[in-house]
């Protein structure tokens, strides 16, 4: 009988556990980051509600000079005017404010400070640094991110898939090697360098070609982002095409169809999952990219979409979600409203990429089940 030595058995067990930990760690990290971002933003998210549950009963008993009858009276009085504002009354009770005029004034201040998620999403006023009346509306920032991403994908997807096809199917082996190396080099350029190119070269070009007053615009950011996404789309797309078995190619070519007919009718359908993944990773990069867009888009709060033709005004400056966080996080005092709102933007970005990934999964599954 042959026995494995105890050392070997132990070693394998350890290796197995290490691998297991590596696998699970990804899940742990995602949850930890998610938790952290939420934790930092919680003050704002729950601000409108924090008093309702906790303070009502205790406030009434703790406040000096207010007996139960008086408290009931105040509550009833306020309830007549605005039944939703019971929390404001609680707060007033804690502060021992009974003067109604003062009460109204303080209430309106609270109202202005109150964080409404709907308002946060739908208004365009982003004045986080205002002394008297800071407002946090991210609609223009979302519009900035979306406009740059869409436009960059319009540039990068045809470009990237086209070159993936060319490299995989149409070029000579020698050229293929060269192109692959060059495209990998393109992926290795740091994003701040891309941003620098946007700020200097593209800026000049756009001003000259389009006669725009300023060149750091949606278009500039989109071109830079597009060029940054191309290497990802090319390398993953090329992998997807290479993964299609050669027997498919030979079978199709053997039928006497042209190369292009083979590519269009056989190769693309066979590789569509991988190609879709390539495109979505490109989109993910476009949404998440920070440094290059910070430098290339002009960084001014502005909604480039409007109802008039051509609907997306590519020659306007915008500010994106990611660039906002990068630029403002350093100046926002810890746990201030501004700080917390920046973390909410983080959650927003999280959600956006999650939606992109989820829809990718669903699309891929849909294709597979067809």
């Amino acid at each position, binding site marked *: 009988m042959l026995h494995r030595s105890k050392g070997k058995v132990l070693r394998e067990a350890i290796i197995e556990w290490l691998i297991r930990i590596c696998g699970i760690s990804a899940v742990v990290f995602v949850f930890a980051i998610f938790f952290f971002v939420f934790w930092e933003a919680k003050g704002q998210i729950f601000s409108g509600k924090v008093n309702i549950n906790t303070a009502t009963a205790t406030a009434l008993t703790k406040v000096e000079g207010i007996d139960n009858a008086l408290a009931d009276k105040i509550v009833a009085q306020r309830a007549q005017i605005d039944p939703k504002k019971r929390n404001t009354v609680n707060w007033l009770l804690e502060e021992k404010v009974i003067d109604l005029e003062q009460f109204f004034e303080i209430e309106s201040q609270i109202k202005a400070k109150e964080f409404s998620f709907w308002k946060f999403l739908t208004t365009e006023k982003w004045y986080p640094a205002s002394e008297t009346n800071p407002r946090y509306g991210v609609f223009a920032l979302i519009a900035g991110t979306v406009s740059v991403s869409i436009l960059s994908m319009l540039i990068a997807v045809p470009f990237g898939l086209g070159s993936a096809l060319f490299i995989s199917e149409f070029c000579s082996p020698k050229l293929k090697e060269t192109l692959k190396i060059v495209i990998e080099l393109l992926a290795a350029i740091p994003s701040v360098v891309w941003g620098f190119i946007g700020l200097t070269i593209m800026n000049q070009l756009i001003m000259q070609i389009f006669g725009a007053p300023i060149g750091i615009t949606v278009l500039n950011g989109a071109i830079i982002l597009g060029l940054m996404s191309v290497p990802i789309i090319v390398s993953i797309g090329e992998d997807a095409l290479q993964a299609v078995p050669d*027997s498919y190619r030979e*079978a*199709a*070519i*053997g*039928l006497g*169809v*042209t190369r292009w007919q083979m590519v269009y*009718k056989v190769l693309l359908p066979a590789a569509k999952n991988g190609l879709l993944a390539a495109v979505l990773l490109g989109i993910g990069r476009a949404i998440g990219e920070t440094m290059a867009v910070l430098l290339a888009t002009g960084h001014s709060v502005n909604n480039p979409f409007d109802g008039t033709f051509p609907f997306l005004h590519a020659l306007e400056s915008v500010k994106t979600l990611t660039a906002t966080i990068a630029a403002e996080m350093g100046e926002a005092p810890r746990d201030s409203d501004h700080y917390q709102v920046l973390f909410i933007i983080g959650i927003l970005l999280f959600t956006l990429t999650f939606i992109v990934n989820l829809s990718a999964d669903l699309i891929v599954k849909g294709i597979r089940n*067809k």
Partner: protein
Amino acid sequence: MVASIAKLKVEDLKVAYGDKQVIHGISYEIPPNEIFGVIGPAQSGKTSMLRVINRTIEFTPNAKVSGKIEIDGEDAFRMKDVYGYRRRIGMVAPLPVGLPLTIYDNVAFAPRSFGMKDKDQLDALVQKCLEQAALWDEVKDRLDSLGTKLSGGQQQRLTIARALSHQPEVLCLDEFSIAIDPVTTMKIEDVLKELRESMTIILVTNLVQQARRLAKRTMFLLNGELVEEGDTEKMFSGDADNPKTNEFVSGAFG
């Protein structure tokens, strides 16, 4: 016998992948409307030879081909319209390759790409090809499902239907019956006997008995060299010219 022009004439064909010579100069002729059997053990160059015949070997970057192939007296390697040329050659690979299209589109792919658009014409052609490949009855109710979802044997018959769809003059079958059960194999063999009326068939097979049943003449390849070529009956009678042939057909090696 009238000396007619050969349908397919192969002259001193040599093939190498890089430094590795796989076919060392073989020559043979196949007259029209004949089933020509090719037997030989693995690595004998059978598949490479077929890939030369339909010129898909040109997609293997390091493949070197010399020699000459004539179809109806025309030099196949010099033909400018390589797509038109491939259309004249039907090819069935040993392992079934269902293209990632519906069953219908698999068969209609080639005719469509040559410009056949008429729906009725396509329908009729698809049905005819699937019937010839003994697959029609099994798939006629689900022509819209993916060809790749069929079982291995069904996919193989689908590739046969597909090879017939562009009405080739020469049909190359590379060990087509590997994935097919004996009953279906017999059905397809019957079809091949009918098809012989309208095309020339090269039957590469590992089943020596299959060559015996179908082929008029048979060629025995070994390590890229032509050992013997002759009437099937003689080749399998145990009375072949070359003793290696006798050994192979009697199962002594291979």
